[in-house]
């Protein structure tokens, strides 16, 4: 076996090995991934809730609280999500999963949606502490990126 073909064989073996390991996420691991992403989504919702209630006049505008919520949102959407989206954890394959298979089949677009969410959270982080008008102006992009991703990648819950 030539040196080149040996390298190729070894790489192939490694790739196959990696695939096998990758595919071998246990049911518990898949369920845990769903729980991780649900916890993260709930944190996002809590921060968005603080901001949206101020935007809608349901609670009085408070620059410090708004800034804190926007910073928390930015942190929550920016965490490494690799452990959340284990292949094989779509709806029907893991407990309480509402993820559409398209999360994995349209991975590039799914990641672009995540990047859009981060961009909207960054803009909110810059705006929330300025004044109510700035917060209100930044909110539709945040809501739009939540909905933009859910439209394609989350199936109806009940």
């Amino acid at each position, binding site marked *: 076996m030539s040196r080149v073909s040996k390298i190729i064989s070894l790489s192939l073996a490694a790739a196959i090995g990696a695939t096998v390991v990758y595919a071998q996420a246990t049911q518990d691991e898949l369920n845990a991934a769903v729980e991780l992403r649900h916890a993260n989504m709930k944190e996002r919702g*809590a921060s*968005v*809730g603080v901001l949206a209630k101020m935007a809608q006049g349901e609670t009085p505008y408070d620059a410090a609280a708004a800034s804190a919520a926007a910073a928390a949102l930015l942190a929550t959407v920016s965490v490494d999500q690799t452990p959340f989206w284990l292949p094989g954890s779509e709806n029907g394959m893991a407990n309480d999963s509402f993820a*559409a298979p398209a999360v994995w089949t349209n991975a590039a677009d799914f990641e672009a949606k995540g990047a859009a969410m981060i961009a909207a959270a960054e803009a909110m982080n810059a705006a929330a502490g300025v004044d109510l008008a700035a917060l209100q102006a930044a909110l539709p992009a945040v809501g739009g990126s939540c909905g933009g991703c*859910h439209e394609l990648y*989350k199936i109806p819950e*009940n």
Partner: protein
Amino acid sequence: MGRLLRWLVVIALLAAGAGWFLTRPQTLPESTIAGLAGDPVHGRDVFNAAGCASCHSVPDVAVSDPPILAGGQEFNTDFGTFVAPNITPDPEHGIGAWTDLQIVTAIMRGVDDRGQHLYPAFPYGTYAKAAPQDMVDLVAYLRTLPPDATPSQPQAVSFPFSIRRAVGGWKLLFLSENWVLQDAPTPQLERGRYLVEALGHCGECHTPRNILGGPERSQWLAGAPNPDGEGRIPNITPGALTWSEADIVTYLSTGFTPDFDSAGGSMAGVVRNISQLPPEDITAIAAYLKAVPPIAAAATAPAG
């Protein structure tokens, strides 16, 4: 004996003739829209309330302003795959050459410009309750949108549903001008009923269907399998939906649920349309949803 047989043949022929007559595509008379002038500005509200863009806009383009209604989205159902057609003003591939009455007839009676039945994936069964003035306004708005020369795709419907005449039978059974909520004692409830039952066609997804694909009116808005595939469309009667009217208004205006989850699937597009309506219309929808007969969550199939 020969005489009896002859009578049977005559009766069978008469029955077939009656069936043929009853299932014929029925167009609207000119008087439906005679004297009505279309207002494209109000037509845009009708367009958003009726959710036309959700199905007729080109695939994978969630938002465009103005909307490009060139069709092409596919809907996989038990009856086959329906493909939304081009409804832009293009005279060849769209509906630019249709008369106002032909377009209104398609929307309210499911009959195209050639007098052929359209499949009820197009919710004319609910648009049948629309106000002719609204339809004329809608047509005026549609005529302002950009033309697009993308040809409409054929419907991929399996036998026996491929026999268009059978759609006439479906219409006899399910095209109804009767309200589900018969009692709407306030103008607000009347408006909400109109928006939900006629224009919004909410029941197309939120009401379960029978074996012929018609709505189970006794299970109005009680939830159903997701026509797009996995999951279930929720029960939104007061038997299951515990949100306040204000919660429903916020959801339809922003997409946010009371715990700040956000609308997903096809509902994201519905929110995009409804959120553009005048606020009093959104409030009327919420009031209506609180007034429909409650159907207990347990009465529907378990979550899938």
